[in-house]
């Protein structure tokens, strides 16, 4: 009997232990087990309310009852019915000892307290006296090749043609201002000697020559280095007394270095220019320092980019008249904030036949094609290596009439490369206010 009594005593002890442990081992409520992340909900709600800067405006106009009524309606409408809130605006000031002091300015709420569970987020809003910054993505920066270099031909020893009203140097500066934020390196090629250097594949300032974009600001003329690149067989065709082979060599360099060659206006490569080399030669229109290659230049360039054998011949362009920006370019216009006229006059549009003849694909139409004419587009040369198709070498031709609008040049390149614009850090030069949105849950636990 004694043993049974002892067992009963043991059972009483264990029962006591169980009751005691059950009393202290309180299981959480289901809402605590699976809580809604009120802190993130609060933050995203404030971001939404401030998407048009309405929250910032209200935070700095606390006496405007209409503004605050609307804010309260928007807050109530956007939150789930079981979420209650308290939104408080604090003025941010500095105390004499340098510490930051937060003084409440105003508050709105739809409940006396914040229920069984609550959490808060804060957002520092700035007054309208702020500056906004955008950070453009650098073209090619993430492709593992060190980014793409932009060369702007700013050759002091070359003249331009069909850039009436401008000179190549002023256009170069404008292009630099427009495009340099989007490139890892932007280099002004100051003379034909430097042009010769990059044609030889040598960098000017340690930049990446491969995959570069080269913008010729001389219009229908192209700078030609004296010496090797103007020599017979390389830059000069003795039998036709023409510098068309220079255009062919340029085409080959574009292919070799995977460049994108940009012609900003008119008939590409119609003249070659070097003020020293052609000091006594004029382009038949009275401009010295320039030699007319005529339509053979474009023909030779396209042969070069397609790695065909050079043969002297002519090229054609069309005059479709008034042309319209493509949808893609219009979209980029808004995105990059570059607004040229959507209607332009084209008198030197390239033929669609060059696409098949020289294995070119249009990656971006800057202007809508008209019949068989392409007023402005970026062409990429298609190559197939070991059965894998890719692009090698590019050509951007704007076959518009003079005077050039370099915004179109910039717009076309940005449309094709599509660098992103990251916005928008801002710096406040006036006082800031802290907005705290405290959310709580009501209803059953």
């Amino acid at each position: 009997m004694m043993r049974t009594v002892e067992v009963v005593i043991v059972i009483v002890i264990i029962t006591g232990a169980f009751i005691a442990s059950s009393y202290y081992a309180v299981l959480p409520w289901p809402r605590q087990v699976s809580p809604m992340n009120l802190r993130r909900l609060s933050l995203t709600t404030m971001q939404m309310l401030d998407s048009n800067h309405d929250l910032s405006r209200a935070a700095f106009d606390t006496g405007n009852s209409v503004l605050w009524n609307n804010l309260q309606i928007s807050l109530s409408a956007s939150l789930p019915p079981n979420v209650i809130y308290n939104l408080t605006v604090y003025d941010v000031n500095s105390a004499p000892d340098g510490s930051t002091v937060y003084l409440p300015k105003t508050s709105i709420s739809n409940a006396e307290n914040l229920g069984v569970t609550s959490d808060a987020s804060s957002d520092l809003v700035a007054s309208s006296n702020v500056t906004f910054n955008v950070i453009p993505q650098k073209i090619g920066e993430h492709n593992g090749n060190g980014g793409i270099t932009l060369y702007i031909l700013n050759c002091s020893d070359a003249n331009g043609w069909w850039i009436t009203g401008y000179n190549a140097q002023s256009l170069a500066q404008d292009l630099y201002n427009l495009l340099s934020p989007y490139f890892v390196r932007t280099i002004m090629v100051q003379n034909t000697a430097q042009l010769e250097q990059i044609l030889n594949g040598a960098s000017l300032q340690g930049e990446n020559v491969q995959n570069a974009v080269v913008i010729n600001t001389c219009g229908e003329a192209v700078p030609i280095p004296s010496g090797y690149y103007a020599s017979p067989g390389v830059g000069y065709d003795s039998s036709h007394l023409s510098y068309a082979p220079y255009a062919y060599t340029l085409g080959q360099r574009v292919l070799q270095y995977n460049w994108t060659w940009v012609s900003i206006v008119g008939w590409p490569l119609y003249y070659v220019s070097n003020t020293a080399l052609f000091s006594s030669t004029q382009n038949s229109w009275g401009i010295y320092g320039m030699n007319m290659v005529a339509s053979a230049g474009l023909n030779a360039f396209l042969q070069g980019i397609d790695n065909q054998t050079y043969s002297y011949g002519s090229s054609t362009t069309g005059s479709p008249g008034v042309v319209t920006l493509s949808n893609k370019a219009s979209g980029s216009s808004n995105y990059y904030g570059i607004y040229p006229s959507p209607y332009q006059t084209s008198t030197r549009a390239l033929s669609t036949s060059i696409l098949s003849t020289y294995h070119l694909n249009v990656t971006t139409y800057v202007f809508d094609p008209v019949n068989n004419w392409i007023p402005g587009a970026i062409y990429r040369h298609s190559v197939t290596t070991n059965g894998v198709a890719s692009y090698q070498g590019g050509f951007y031709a704007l076959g518009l009439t003079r005077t050039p609008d370099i915004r179109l040049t910039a717009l076309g390149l940005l449309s094709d490369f599509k660098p992103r614009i990251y916005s928008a850090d801002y710096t406040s030069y006036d006082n800031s206010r802290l907005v705290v949105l405290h959310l709580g849950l009501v209803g059953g636990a």
Partner: protein
Amino acid sequence: MGGVSVDHIVALIVFVSAIMLFVGFFGQTIQTGIIYQQNQAVATKCSDLLDSILLNPGSPNNWGQENSTLSSFGIQDPEFTQYQLSAFSLMRLGSTGNLAEFDKTSQSIYYNSLTLGLGSFLLTPNAQAVNYSTVLSLLGINGTYGFQLSLTPDISVSITENQASSPLILGISATGTGFPLAYATVSYCFVQVTLPSTDAQYPSYTIQNGTVTTDQTGAANVQFPSVTNPNQVYSFIAYAHSNGIVGVGYHAKASNSDQYIVPILQDFASQNVALAHNYDLNNSNPATLTLKYNATFVILKQDYTLSELSLSSPGDTGVNGTVTSGYNNPFPSISLPEYSTGILIVTYQQQDNLNQGGVVMMPWGVGSLAVPITFGGNPAKQQWVATDLRQVMINNVAYQAKLSLWSTQGMQVKS
């Protein structure tokens, strides 16, 4: 001696029984605690996963505008920071809704149908859709968790026709998830369709823009005295906005609901949209019936008015033509802008009965007409589902993103 033995036996039996009973009691408490802990882990995972999905654009980051294979999943708009989502990426998500078959050139080509009722369609190619199992793998939760992501507009804008003509009176009601959107500005676009009386002409339309303000119940009325025909074909789009919260609603009226045009996105990369006769969907009706159409793409400007964008040759804003039902009969297709979100508006007219026609719209980007999105598995029969919420923006339209997450490994504890 016998009494002592009985005492021992009884004591032993009682003791063992009591121990087993208490082991059960304690075990149950411990089991409940462990299950709670596992549920809390699911809730934490749910919050993390929701941020992971909403705060990265995926890779490639413009996968909503390509047919490429994803290497990581996310739906943030690559142009923006924070909780702004890509309207295009969301269109590529495999729908949990119906599939539609377009029997025009070959059979068994299916499209995800996010049809929003008569007058608005969003059909996307099922073959190019990103499906649930792929996303599970990309998120690294395949075999461990299941989820459902739903994106619901914060503001529901409903439109009703209160009077058909002289004047046409439309009622607008804007309601949030928790409260009416009172005293909000409603910017509207009224698309009034003209059905020509000759075969040679195509249907056309004019757009009237205006604004009204909702009352304290979130309601407003708008009148159009120019509408004197009770059978007037029109569509009406309303944008209710207040303090950064924007909601979209629409209403369309056709004189004929039997034959109509259905825009079908055929390719994400080329943005190619086929204009299909509805008889060619699911091989539903007879061939050789023709509709004349006029297609226009409009974008929403900052002041909430619609602006037309060219779809074809320079100077043109609309594209005209005919579409005839029946296998192998030609069907027109148009290309939409690669980057601009907006609305494709197609007015149509029956060729054999010029009094019959209508207008349909296709949102280009889910935010354009505030299309709700549901993607993923079904949480209905799961043992424990954790949910979390975020406020997000899609094309400046306010949405609530809700993620429901559950464990697929079970919650049982072996005792």
